[in-house]
């Protein structure tokens, strides 16, 4: 392997060389070098179908809808309408930690399914769905039930929304349905959108109560994997913010109902929630900013931006004091660990937003990012929101409902005047802004959308990074090659990694992973030493 490619263009050629022509042509458009800060960002192909037979990281629309967005909501009975598999596989596998709170309602450890059999597929499953909702109500008395359709339900045409409506009338609790069949859209991203639309339609703004607190915010796109939301809640409270609702880590339907009481929406995962932020601004007049609580510096920056928005000196001072106190703890750990991680290299191919956010944490350890990409992003996640008007709407995107949102006649209340927004903007508070992942990654980094197994293997052979970040399906493949893999979906049961305490957890975990001795043990002594002869006398 002496003729290893050395620059991004050569590597790209190597990645696609063995692919069938059509596949190669398609994949070429999803592979780019990063760009330097301030340079124009080229267009990257993303949010397009995976190629049959080419091993992908992606999951399906149902996974995004039930697994990611509504799954972490503890007081909703999430009922999967379909054969047993989908409900089974999305049962507790996302590590959505939750605190059942004083009301004690928590349905997260349960898997609810209509367990459709052949009979239901042939004769229709509506009757069974209706009965299952009744039985869920009789056994569990939840305040809300949401229904998720799986592939065959879409084909046989069960009207799950009609069932939801009639059962809502009969039982007097909130019941809504999600048409999130796995074949819709091209990735889990479609499922996020479907769930969010239904939450927007059926839940947000359905309870008008006075929420106490001066600085009320919502956290959008935070799923409390490994307790991330707990850490963010801790920091926000310490600074003096009031968190009305988190979408949807450690969340409740009750919090969603009053989310319109917040005065600022903060968006963590841009991919899964940017449109909810937009809709809530249109409907209720709540401005939104992009934040990032992954990375100590990023967390500090996000807190400062949030405080700046409220223009309250007391809040600003308190926030600064919190940041100073927290960063001091963080610095002690960085000082200890950085000498061991400095100059090491990493790649991240994961999720939507995580591949961007976690670059901050690696940089804090002095590590270099050799490549990154998203599993289910759209162009704006890579290139920035300015490309939104130029994104082509294809047939797969058209399958996902777009809500037409208007100002709520009673609840619309602009939180800031145009002048105030403009003034804050001048001070550097970028509303509705997201620059995307690619800018600033540097020309020698690889950006790959929807990376597949084949490309991953090639990339690892060429770059040999010190650590690779992806998910469970990739983990043991990469580790068999002697490279540690950090799961960024479930954190390898570690975490939290958000906020300041999270950053410290991360530094320690990465230190362990890139410095562990295990990778030096792969060869036995007799496999590494040269041939050697030992002799004994024969009597």
């Amino acid at each position, binding site marked *: 392997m002496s003729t290893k490619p050395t620059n991004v263009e050569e590597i790209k050629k190597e990645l696609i060389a063995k692919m*069938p022509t059509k*596949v190669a042509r398609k994949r070429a458009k999803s592979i780019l070098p990063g760009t330097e800060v301030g340079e124009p960002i080229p267009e990257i192909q993303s949010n397009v*179908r*995976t*190629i*049959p*037979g*080419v*091993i*992908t*990281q992606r*999951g*399906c629309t*149902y996974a995004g809808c039930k697994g990611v967005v509504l799954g972490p909501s503890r007081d909703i009975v999430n*009922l999967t309408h*379909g*054969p*047993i*598999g*989908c409900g*089974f*596989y999305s*049962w507790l596998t996302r590590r959505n930690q939750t605190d*059942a709170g004083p009301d*004690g*309602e*928590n349905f997260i450890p*349960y*898997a*609810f*399914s*209509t*367990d459709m*059999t*052949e009979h239901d*597929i042939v004769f229709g499953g509506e009757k069974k769905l209706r*009965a299952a909702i*009744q*039985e869920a109500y009789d*056994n*569990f008395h939840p305040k809300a039930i949401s229904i998720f359709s799986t*592939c*065959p339900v879409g*084909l*046989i045409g069960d009207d799950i929304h009609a069932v939801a409506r009639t059962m809502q009338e009969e039982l007097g609790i909130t019941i809504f349905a999600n048409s999130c069949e*796995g*074949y*819709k*859209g091209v990735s*889990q991203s479609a499922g996020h959108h479907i769930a969010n639309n239904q939450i927007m339609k059926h839940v947000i703004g359905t309870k008008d109560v006075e929420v106490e607190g001066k600085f009320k915010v919502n956290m959008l796109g935070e799923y409390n994997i490994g307790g991330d939301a707990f850490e963010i809640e801790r920091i926000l409270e310490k600074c003096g913010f009031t968190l009305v609702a988190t979408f949807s880590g450690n969340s409740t339907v009750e919090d969603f109902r009053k989310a319109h009481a917040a005065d600022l929406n903060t968006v963590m995962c841009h991919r899964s929630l940017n449109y909810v932020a937009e809709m809530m601004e249109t409907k209720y007049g709540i401005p939104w900013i992009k934040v990032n609580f992954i990375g100590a510096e990023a967390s500090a920056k996000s807190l400062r931006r949030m405080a700046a928005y409220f223009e309250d000196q007391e809040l600003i001072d308190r926030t600064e004091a919190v940041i100073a106190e927290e960063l001091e703890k963080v610095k002690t750990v960085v000082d200890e660990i950085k000498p061991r991680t400095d100059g090491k290299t990493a790649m991240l191919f994961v999720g939507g937003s995580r591949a961007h956010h976690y670059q901050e944490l690696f940089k804090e350890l002095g590590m270099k990012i050799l490549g990154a990409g998203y599993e289910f992003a759209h162009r704006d996640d890579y290139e920035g929101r300015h490309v939104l008007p130029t994104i082509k709407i294809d047939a*797969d995107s058209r399958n996902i409902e777009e809500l037409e949102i208007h100002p709520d006649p009673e609840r619309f209340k602009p939180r800031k005047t145009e002048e105030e927004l403009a003034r804050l903007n001048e001070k550097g508070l970028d509303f509705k802004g997201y620059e995307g992942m690619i800018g600033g990654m540097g020309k020698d980094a690889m950006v790959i959308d929807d990376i597949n197994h084949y490309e991953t*293997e090639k990339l690892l052979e060429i770059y040999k990074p010190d650590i690779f970040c992806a998910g469970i*399906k990739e*983990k*043991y493949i990469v*580790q*068999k*090659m002697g490279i540690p893999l950090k799961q960024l979906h479930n954190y390898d049961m570690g975490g939290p990694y958000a906020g300041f305490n999270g950053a410290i957890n991360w530094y320690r975990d990465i230190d362990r992973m890139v410095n562990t001795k295990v990778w030096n043990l*792969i*060869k036995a002594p007799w496999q590494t030493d040269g041939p050697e002869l030992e002799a004994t006398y024969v009597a």
Partner: protein
Amino acid sequence: MALLRHTTGEIKERKALTVNPAKTCQPVGAMYAALGVKGCFPHSHGSQGCCAYHRSALTRHYKEPVVAGTSSFTEGSSVFGGQSNLITAIDNIFTLYDPEVIAIHTTCLSETIGDDLMQISQKAKDDGKVPAGKHIVYASTPSYVGTHVTGYANMVKGILKGFVKKTGTPNGKINIIPGFCEPSDMAEIRRLADMMGIDITMVPDTNGVLNGPMTGHYEMYPNAGATPAEIAGMGDAKATIGLGRWATADGVNFLDAEFKVPGHVMGLPIGLKATDRYVDLLRKLSGKTVPDAINFERGQVVDLLSDYSQYFYGKKVAMAGDPDQVLALVEFCITLGMIPAYTVTGTAGKYFDERMAELLKDVPYDCKFKCGGEADMYLLHQWIKNDPVDLLIGNTYLKYVARDEDIPLVRHGFPILDRVGHQYFPSVGYSGAMRLMEKFLEALLDRLDRDAPETRFELQL
């Protein structure tokens, strides 16, 4: 605080709602079976989420690489049929990943639209998408029929259908189809046959595939599993043994009907009596004598049981799992003097009820058992709420019940997500029986020690 805090002892009849299932769907079993063929690439014909879920489930259970392809259905393919997606997939798989075999299984999506795998595979061959010397096998595994156990059985039969031939020259071998069990179990099933000097063909054989070594290299096709050539020879064998009625009877009967290879379906050889039956059947079919080494291992099982019978005797057990697994475990628990008080399996079958009744007839307790869709872990938990047990046996999902009810759990079955060992150490055969006894004892004696008052805390047990 209870984790399953909404579960009460009040049992209301449910006909439509499954809560905490003791089963999952067919394709994951099919994917697992396919991995037991050397050089085989499993392919899921449906939308990509199924494949992602099944790969994740198997990876989490084995902590090993599991790759598989998907036909990546979108709305269009759901309406117009999945033929073009599958043919594209076959072409891409052979070009990029170069397997010997592609094992295709369907999903509820491709089944509902009626895709015909036989016809599509033929078209792929006719179109030149299958390189010379390479193979496609397939199985129909709709998720709304059966469970992961059925999916395993269907893929086993699909593999046999795809490869087995009869040359007319007997090869003197014995075919073994292991049920849905661990790679370590398959290794142990083979070891016993080896000890008897019997030449077997085992299909599938995931030993070495899903418990492989760390080498610094990733091998998509480990040097393990049954080879297509070996499988082809099964038509010339002396007999077939199927270990597990649900998982293997179809395959055994296929070889019997199609190639006149006499078939014997028995249970999984878990526990003393079941292992005895396996060894005895091997002896009868091969005409070989059981070697002393096997008698020695068997004697150790009986010895340990006699030494520790007092701690097993009368202990109540609740278990959830696959029917082939739980039937064998129930028998073993009874052998140990334990009471299998509650048993559920999500996989249906009339034989389950018959066999349970037979096994339980002399057990002095009103044991409850149930199979099929309504037999979920929620029901099991409700039974326990009404009358607790001393030990739980089942997959990782039972840990919530274990914690809530403060009952020790021995992890067994699929999936085990939070512990290791199942990949490496067998629970079948005599050595497996010893390991199970050890695990049961660990759980029971740890509890005894934990709960003992100071005066009753003993050095020797």
